[in-house]
């Protein structure tokens, strides 16, 4: 019977072990010690990251490179290049590039901003961050929708809260209606004596500025609808009038930080400094833009453009003796390449005297710490000027003058080297008043120039699609995908066919003009 004793001892130990619940520490074991659950984590920290992501992906400027630069900047003839993969300069179809913004925006921007809004809902201690979150969420969604049209909106980014893994595509019409409502409600719900926005890397937690930002954003959203719903556009413009940004001090921009490497450096700069290729040498201001400034004697030409900044293809070292001064500046024509075909070969273009002679952006504008401009006072004023022309709301000339002055003086926010003094700006604005006979063109051209100098080529493209201003001459490159017309939309990413097939197919089939570069979003009515 001795043997049984072993069993007894063993079983007793075993039974005690399990009955007493060895699993009591399992919850601790299954909690990542390097992270905090939502209740313990201030949503302000996430806001900073969401804002940074709006300034471009931390994955090596992934979306900025492809959407803002390769496509928008060149289609809008703000920039030009001979780099073969810059498909936008030639209206070529590169599905990987046109889907880049979508891929990163939902992951890096929408996920975070939706989480901020959802996790602070009905929490009075987080009222203001909730409202600011709603405004930012509207800002982020507007750009995605402007690029693609109907997009997942109401069910997007919140799958943790809703469990919906197959977000439907909302119509752009309904999205815009909701964006305007959201911004309006959020501005009104901001409580000046409420919680401080500590994670704000754009307006530094200034709630008064947030309100003005909100109204300028509302203005921009409303004006987008002039072709499709003028009444709605006007009603929101009327709400915003008098409450929009008041000076360049209200400009919304995010200042980058060199120390964080690719994660925090300016995204446009990373590309234009040649971090990922030879963009430094081969990407230049477009001659369309340079010529516009020259034709109007615009003092910005002396500031924003330099030549001989990079002297050889192989070197990424900037030439400290770069040349400024409008007279020597020269833009590069769009639609040119390095091939042997004389129709396109840049060397055969009459303007060609070597690449260093074409104008690059001023080094201050491509500094790693440079700001990313999100929404500026000048844009706001130009839109008010347009509203005044369209609907007689306010003084168009005054708003135009404010906008023009501001779009010169704001350059100081790039850095002192490109600053234009208030007096020169005032002088220039006085000398170039709004031509009431050609007012919409004047406003649109300046809106475009302002967008180019703030590297917000997205906005230049959106406004051009709405207004057709400036009047750009398309290039006609071999094998282009648009029959020689400037693209009006990005096709949906094919990846959605893989992950959200039913909703994707329905949306893709519904695009006016087809799910192509030549298709149109709802507000871009022919």
């Amino acid at each position, binding site marked *: 019977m001795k043997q049984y004793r072993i069993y007894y001892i063993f079983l007793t130990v*075993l039974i005690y072990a399990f009955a007493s619940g060895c699993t009591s520490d399992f919850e601790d074991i299954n909690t*990542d010690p390097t992270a905090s659950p939502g209740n313990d984590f201030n949503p302000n920290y996430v806001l*900073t990251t969401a804002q940074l992501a709006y300034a471009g992906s931390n994955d090596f400027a992934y979306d900025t490179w492809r959407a803002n630069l390769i496509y928008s900047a060149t289609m809008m003839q703000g920039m030009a290049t001979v780099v073969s993969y810059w498909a936008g300069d030639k209206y070529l179809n590169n599905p990987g590039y046109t889907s880049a913004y979508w891929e990163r925006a939902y992951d890096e921007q929408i996920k975070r901003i939706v989480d901020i809004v959802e996790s602070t809902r009905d929490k009075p201690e987080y009222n203001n961050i909730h409202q600011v979150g709603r405004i930012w969420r509207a800002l982020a969604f507007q750009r995605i929708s402007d690029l693609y049209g109907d997009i997942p909106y109401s069910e997007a980014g919140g799958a943790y809260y809703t469990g919906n893994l197959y977000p439907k595509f909302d119509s752009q019409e309904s999205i815009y209606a909701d964006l305007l409502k959201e911004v309006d409600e959020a501005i009104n719900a901001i409580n000046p004596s409420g919680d401080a926005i500590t994670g704000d890397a754009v307006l530094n937690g200034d709630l008064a500025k947030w309100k003005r930002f909100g109204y300028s954003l509302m203005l921009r959203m409303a004006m987008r609808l002039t072709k499709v719903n003028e009444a709605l556009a006007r009603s929101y413009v009327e709400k915003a009038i008098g409450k929009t940004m008041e000076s360049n001090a209200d400009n919304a921009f995010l200042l980058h930080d060199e120390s964080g*490497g690719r994660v925090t450096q300016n995204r446009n700069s990373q590309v234009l400094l040649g971090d990922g290729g030879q963009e430094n040498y081969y990407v230049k201001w477009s001659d369309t833009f340079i010529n516009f400034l020259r034709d109007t004697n615009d003092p910005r030409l002396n500031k924003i453009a330099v030549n001989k900044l990079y002297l050889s293809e192989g070197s990424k070292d900037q030439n400290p003796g770069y040349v400024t001064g409008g007279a020597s500046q020269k833009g590069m024509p769009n639609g040119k390449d390095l091939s*042997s075909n004389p129709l396109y070969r840049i060397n055969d273009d009459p303007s060609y005297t070597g690449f260093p002679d074409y104008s690059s952006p001023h080094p201050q504008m491509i500094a790693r710490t440079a700001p990313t401009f999100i929404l500026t006072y000048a844009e706001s004023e130009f839109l008010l000027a347009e509203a005044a022309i369209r609907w007689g709301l306010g003084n168009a000339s005054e708003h135009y003058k404010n906008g023009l002055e501001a779009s010169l003086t704001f350059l100081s926010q790039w850095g002192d080297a490109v600053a234009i003094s208030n007096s020169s700006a005032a002088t220039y604005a006085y000398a170039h008043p709004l031509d009431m006979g050609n007012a919409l063109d004047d406003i649109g051209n300046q809106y475009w120039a302002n967008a180019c100098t703030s590297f917000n080529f997205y906005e230049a493209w959106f406004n051009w699609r709405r207004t057709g201003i400036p009047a750009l001459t398309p290039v006609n490159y071999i094998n282009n995908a648009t029959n020689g017309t400037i693209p009006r939309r990005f096709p949906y990413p094919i990846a959605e066919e893989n*992950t959200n097939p039913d909703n994707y197919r329905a949306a893709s089939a519904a695009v006016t003009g087809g799910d192509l570069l030549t298709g149109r979003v709802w507000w871009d009515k022919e």
Partner: protein
Amino acid sequence: MNNYLYRQIPKIGLQAWIFLLIYFQPVFSFAHRPADPLLNQKISIHLHHVSLQEALQVLTEKAGIAFVYSDLFSNQTERINISSTDISVKEVLDKMINANLFSYTVMGKEVVINAKTTQQQVTGVVTDQSQVPLPGVSVRIKGTNQGTSTNDNGQYGLTAPTNATLVFTYTGYVKQEIPINGRNTINIQLQEDNNELNEVVVTALGIRKERKALGYSVTEVKGEEITTARENNFINSLAGKVAGLDIGATSGGVGAASNVTIRGVSSIGQGNQPLYVVNGVPMESQPVGRLNKNPNGNSGSQWDNAPDMGDAISNLNPDDIETISVLKGAAASALYGYRAKAGVIMITTKSGKGNSIDFSSNYVAEQIMDMTDWQYVYGQGANNVKPSDQAGAAQVGGSSWGGKLDGSQVIQFDGVERPYVAQRNNLKNFYRTGGSWTNTIALNKSFDFGTVRLSGSNLDNRSVVPNSGMDRQTFNFSGIFDPIKNLKIDARVNYILEDVQNRPYLSDGAGNANYNVTFLPTSIDVRDLKPWLHDDGTERAYNAGNTFATNPWFAAYEFQNKTKRERTIGSITARYDFDGGYFIQGRIGRDNYSHKYTNVVPSGTAYRPRGSMTEQVTLFSDLNADFLAGSSFMLSDLTITPTIGASFRRTKSELSIQNGQDFSVAGLYNIKNTVNKAIDFIPSDQETQSVYGNIEFSYQDLLYLTGSLRSDWFSTLATPGRNNQLNTVYPSVNASFVFSELWKPTFLSFGKIRLGYATVGQATDPYKTQLMYNFLSETLNGKPLGNIINTAIPNSALKASSASEFEIGTELSLFDTRLNLDVSYYNKQSEDEIVDVTTSTTTGYQGAVLNVGKMENKGIEMLLTGYVFRNTTGFNWTTSFSGTLNNNKIKSLAEGTTVQPVATSRSNVGFLQHREGLAAYQIMAFDFSYDKNGEIIYLDNGAPARGELTPYGSAMHKWMLGWNNEFRYKNINLSFLIDSKWGGKIFSATDYYGYLFGLHQATLENREGTFGESGVEASAYYTDYANNVSKQFVQDASFIKMRQIIIGYTFPAALFHNKIKSLNISAIARNPFILMKRTDNIDPEASYNASIPGMELGGAPPIRTFGFNLSAKF
């Protein structure tokens, strides 16, 4: 198990009670013996110092019992003293009769007293047919667990009952049963066993069992089968040898992981790799892949340009392996529980045998096989024109859309004019002849109280990829001791040092030498890309139009991808056998390693001029402890063996990452020399507790029945604030019926039917139940950057998944064991799979953790072995076929969908998906678009319009057939193995890029003409074609390959006057040629990630190896 039952019981742990109590009963029930009325009668008796004979006479008078006994009993001198007025006859007898020496039985009115068999000494020598002593032969007293084993000189000695039978077993030899019959010396010769059915195999928990007792399928492979023609990752050597086992090597170069699946894809969302158990201790061998948290390792994503970091199993030295047991079914694995869902591969390392020194040396040369078959009509350029200036040549550096190769002098990327001619040997000129040299020495020593084995091995590999290679040292200690009687201690340590130089990048072009050399334009000679540095130390890039197209030499010689791994796998097992068949066993084992990875993107890299580097250290430990107690009870012909056990597992890892961007001093690759640094720290921790019981019944040698029950408690299911069910309980039962014991026709040597059913549960990885936040490493002007860490939506209600498997099989040995057949049918059903369902990026997450889906695998495995010629002194030919048929089907997926994305090809037009109703891992590509009349729709540029994303078949092969042949004549042996797989598909991203770059033969058609109404050129047409319709890139991955050929000679020991006990020299070839393939520019087995089947791009080309192997025993 019935969930309902367990839901009733709120407190975990109670289940342990229940099943332990169930357990208890058999333990006690056999302790009772039925009483007999004759013996129960009460009498009054008074005996004082009487002899036994006298005492019996008194009993006969008082109780009317006749006694029958021998002299042996009556001659005893014992005197009896009993005085009682109310005592049963039985009690009297028990007092009178020494139970150690005698027993009695009642037969009618008679009581027969039998002398118990006396114990006696038996000694002897066990030899083989040629009189060579066999050490380590197990000598067991039949029907008991008692026994011993032979020493170095083949001698044994033990004490056994005179009438006992000794059972001699030795792996590879026919078991012999010899009755002692009073003899004191029994010398026997064991016959080599060609009938594998009688083998003793290692099964779950390291228990050795006779094959005939198993109710499930086990295949055992001997160490020597994988050492002669070896692979650096030894698991690859099993390809084609084991039915039901699918091994896919990856194209990751030296030290890469392998994809191993047993009986098909076992899980929709989790790893499909089997559990490796080394000397009873489970070893984690998750290869790189989708489930890999390592941000710098190859995760098989669309954008992956990262090296394959290898897997754990490749660390082992095949010379140290005694046996590999492949336990295929869930039944075999029930005792390993959740970790064995995908099957178990048990590895037993060698232990000391005798006193000898073993030495082996193996050298193989490695050579690439060029799989590409590009067009060589047109050269580098664009729009059908060859370059005319340097900048233009550089801008189209990756394109073969130029003019006709006419031999004219043409300017190239570097400004030098060279002839415009085809360069067909770029791969051969880039890759070099590699080689692997392995030397192993092992010392065996036997002592009175045990044996030790100590081995050291060095592997020195020079990869075919320039500047890449591996060094590996392994040290193995094994000691088996019997410090006191009945106690056996088995201690093993495996210490591994592995350094891999420059594992190649995979898939994407940046920094990947393989990719760039494969897609070099037809007129560029790879040798002209040398030197790969400009004078200022920057990359001499050949493709300015795509700076991510790294100069392959620069990628090979300047990029660094070093790994350094130090691994210790140790275990100690103590087993105590009580007299009477009880045993207890405790075991503790720990697998731990540190893995250091250094990656350098050098200064001057075209796409990252200022360079960057990563230093990454993984510390991993996996502690496993288990306890087992059991016994055997005999009930006439029925043997019952219950065992119960408990186990504990704690697995922790810490991954520390330092990333540095931008070297401040160019070329100084030191993490401190980087300007922008970022850190990351990724911990992982999980614990599992288990209890289990197992009961075996065996009736004679005829029928075996085993049942088990196990419960696992998982930490990874725990969610703070929620009372999740943390455990899952699962049973198994299997039976083996040896019908040849009953039915003995002359042609049948052995026949058995086996039957098994088991279920097994599985939890998941840690930290999937809560949404958690932390910070990016960087700050933005002093502001912290908060972040949601979950990339997949967490699930606070996770439960363990479950899989059940039914198996039926037979083993037949016919015609004097000349023909042997082992066939199994299995049906495996998985459900509630824990899956990271890939979601649209618009959800904000890359996936969601869900309990979804049902999947089934049904299949047949067969091993047919024929001893065509069998003659110990003459010609022998053994031929065997191992065949596998597996039918996999996804029965359902997440609610509301029939599709679950798995992976996306870098080409963006090929996908891997699970789809309801089809086999797992469907290769998806775009079909043509058809109009109402079924006509293909073409676009203005002539290219077809994009149609539906369509499944074109599973990446997993459906059929596999291996054919192995061994010939032996006297001392010469020859063998070859042919391996084939059928029915799998592969998406060739290589072909896709062949279209885009103008390399593919298909792009020759109308090359200089225009296409469509808009009159585009060939480059635009074929690019659009490839992007719109990708089904032509789905290829049949079926193949037949010559896996290995071995020719060897064994020198007779006499030649060396027995100074050398044995010496064998073999010439070997692995993968010397491909007999059949259907892919055009790739190896049908190409793969850039061990967990992403059917996707390839940018991997190292397949290699063939030739060499020799020498093994000697002193």
